[in-house]
């Protein structure tokens, strides 16, 4: 596209140059013999001049031809419809119409664009009051279970999330194949042991790195106990029966924000500590840190 | 919670009560390579809980010594030597290094069924090698021991092959002899001599495959 425009410009320039040179040819022809030709052999001088001018015109013409040859021709006729006749309009007051036409064209173009975007957004946040769809076409989609999923699907999901966060290490451990238990280490801050049921997060426990990997014993530290509870709340919040993968993904995204658990101060009070705990709450949307009391 | 006492005080109290296992009762013997299978089989039958097969081990031991020339002519020995052994498992990860001090064999009476020597055993962090070198210790020798261990009550039986360290690479090791070293040992607080009798009875059961005996190192030293 860029190149096309450049070439078009070059061609237009070449035409301009050709025009001005043709003009100078006619000028010198119309002027005829001038005083600066001198007396001696003024005809030959004039002819020389004319010849020179004509060769430049010739060269310019070749340039124009080259430039035009470089241009990619428009596919098919470029129809402007009835607007083509506007260019032939001679009355003064109607010559402005073309500009207005272009403006209105731009308008409609934008409207199309915006409505497409709005349509997408509206489709995403539908006013459906229920997830249950009664049309047969869609039913097949909804009946896929999130509880009973092929292990590869979960495997793929986990590894794709793993790739998403470089500072998080995932260690899957699957005693029960369709329901893996993964260990998620968040940098050197903490680790979580997450049990899945199919694509649904079923249990989370957050601990310090030095603690055991047992799924049922909670951490000895208050911070991690608190975060465990918040993880359960987040599990509730992000739960989405229709888009289980999205639920897991957004949960992980939210969970990842705990990487700043000890270093980030509370967004509201600006302190690190409140009742001897760092900000243990992370907002579900903005992922900003808050104390339990400040949220 | 009671006031935490001084660690040294509690240690000396423990020493007084004889609850620190610092005596090693030991019997040693050897078995030729071709009979070791038979021995292992017998041990499997005799020892506790070998349903999952014998436990193998693969250790690297380095012996350090700290010595100073003794200037005082009155002492019998020209040098005072203090040797320490550092051992670590090569086959099992995240196990501690083991630092070991083995004292002189107790002279005792001849009727004692086993060798008794004092021994201080402790697990330590991996900085021990550097620590000992900085302490002024020199490496005396090192070897690789690979084999099996069994237990029978408090007794520990190890059947191990000793390898020379060939260069720096751990793969290029070569066996020292055509036989396995068999050791029967118990670590106990001092004064529990009854265990020696148990060991003797157990050793009887391994005859004639292995003759487990108390070996007098001093005499060995004289031979060599």
């Amino acid at each position, binding site marked *: 596209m860029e190149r096309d425009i450049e070439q078009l410009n070059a061609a237009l320039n070449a035409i301009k140059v050709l025009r001005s040179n043709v003009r100078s040819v006619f000028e010198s022809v119309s002027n005829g013999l001038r005083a600066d030709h001198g007396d001696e052999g003024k005809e030959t001088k004039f002819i020389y001049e004319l010849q020179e001018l004509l060769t430049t015109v010739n060269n310019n013409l070749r340039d124009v031809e080259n430039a035009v040859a470089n241009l990619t021709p428009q596919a098919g006729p470029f129809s402007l419809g009835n607007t083509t006749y506007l260019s032939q309009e001679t009355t003064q007051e109607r010559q402005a119409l073309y500009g207005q036409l272009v403006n209105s064209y731009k308008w409609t173009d934008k409207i199309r664009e915006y409505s497409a975007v709005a349509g997408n957004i509206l489709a995403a946040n539908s006013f459906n009051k229920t997830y249950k769809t009664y049309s047969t076409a869609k039913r097949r989609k909804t009946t896929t279970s999130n509880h009973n999923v092929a292990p590869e699907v979960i495997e793929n999901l986990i590894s794709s999330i793993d790739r998403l966060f470089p500072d998080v290490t995932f260690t899957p451990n699957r005693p029960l194949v369709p329901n893996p238990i993964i260990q998620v280490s968040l940098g050197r801050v903490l680790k979580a042991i997450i049990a899945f049921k199919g694509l649904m997060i079923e249990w989370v426990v957050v601990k310090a790195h030095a603690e055991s990997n047992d799924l049922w014993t909670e951490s000895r530290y208050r911070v991690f106990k608190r975060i465990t509870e918040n993880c359960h709340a987040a599990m509730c919040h992000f739960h989405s029966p229709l888009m289980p993968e999205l639920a897991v993904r957004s949960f992980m995204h939210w969970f990842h924000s705990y990487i700043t658990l000890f270093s980030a101060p509370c967004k509201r009070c600006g302190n690190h500590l409140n009742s001897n705990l760092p900000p243990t709450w992370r907002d579900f949307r903005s992922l900003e840190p808050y104390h339990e009391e400040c949220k | 919670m009671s006031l935490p006492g001084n660690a040294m005080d509690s240690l000396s109290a423990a020493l007084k009560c004889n609850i620190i296992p*610092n005596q090693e009762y030991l019997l040693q013997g050897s078995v030729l390579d071709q009979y070791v299978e038979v021995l292992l089989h017998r041990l499997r039958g005799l020892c506790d809980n070998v349903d999952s097969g014998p436990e193998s081990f693969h250790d690297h031991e380095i012996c350090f010594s700290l010595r100073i020339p003794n200037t005082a002519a009155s002492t019998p020995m020209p040098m005072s030597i203090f040797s320490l052994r550092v051992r670590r498992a090569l086959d099992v990860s995240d196990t501690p290094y083991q630092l070991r001090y083995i004292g002189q064999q107790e002279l005792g009476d001849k009727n004692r069924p086993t060798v008794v020597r004092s021994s201080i055993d402790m697990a330590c962090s991996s900085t021990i090698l550097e620590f000992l070198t900085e302490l002024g210790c020199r490496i005396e020798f090192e070897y690789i021991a690979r084999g099996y261990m069994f237990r029978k009550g408090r007794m520990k039986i190890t059947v191990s092959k000793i390898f020379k360290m060939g260069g720096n690479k751990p793969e290029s090791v070569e066996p020292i002899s055509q036989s396995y070293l068999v050791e029967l040992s118990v670590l106990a607080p001092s004064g529990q001599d009854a265990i020696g009798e148990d060991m003797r009875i157990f050793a009887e059961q391994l005859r004639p495959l292995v003759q487990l005996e108390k070996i007098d190192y001093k005499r060995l030293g004289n031979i060599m």
Partner: protein
Amino acid sequence: MGVTILTQFALENKTGPQTVEVLSKRICALGAVQQGHFLVDCETYTSVPQLGHQRTVHVLHNSEQPATVFSLLDNGTKITALATDGLFDLLMMKMSQFYTSKKQTKAESKGLRYEIGDFYVKLGTVTVSSNYKGILVEVEYRPCVVPAMCWDLLKEFLQGFLGLTAPTNPPTYLQNRMQEVYTPIDTIHQYLEHFTMFRKSPGIYRN
């Protein structure tokens, strides 16, 4: 396992016991619960001259890690740390021929131990060969293992109960190790640093 900050503390015109009293009142007011006592002691052994250039072995015990003996070997240029079972003391006795202990330099910090949330606070009275030397305050934040991550948080906590005299910079020992994983041996290093300071400057805190 958490990050520990050790700092000296003194109040104008107050004796040691009075200072401890003030501090313990403050920390209890913040909601701390007293959980027993604590004791950190340090014994120093030096090599006999026959062993060549002099080396010093500091053997420390921390009641927080009751199964461990920490030894720091100082050969003049660098310090090698070692953590072992409790029997290391026995070994040191056996080595008395090579390393002799200087009883008069035995230092210890002992006092009350408090728990407040995930923090441990220890208010220790330091004595060197049973002479009072000063107050050491130890604050440990247990869940975190990287000093750099929780230094600000610890600073805030320290300021909360030590007031303006709280340290504004991490201890010198930690400054080079802010990004590393903190281990109990780092606490021991800090104690040793303070103990040597107390040993060298006798009695300046005795006011």
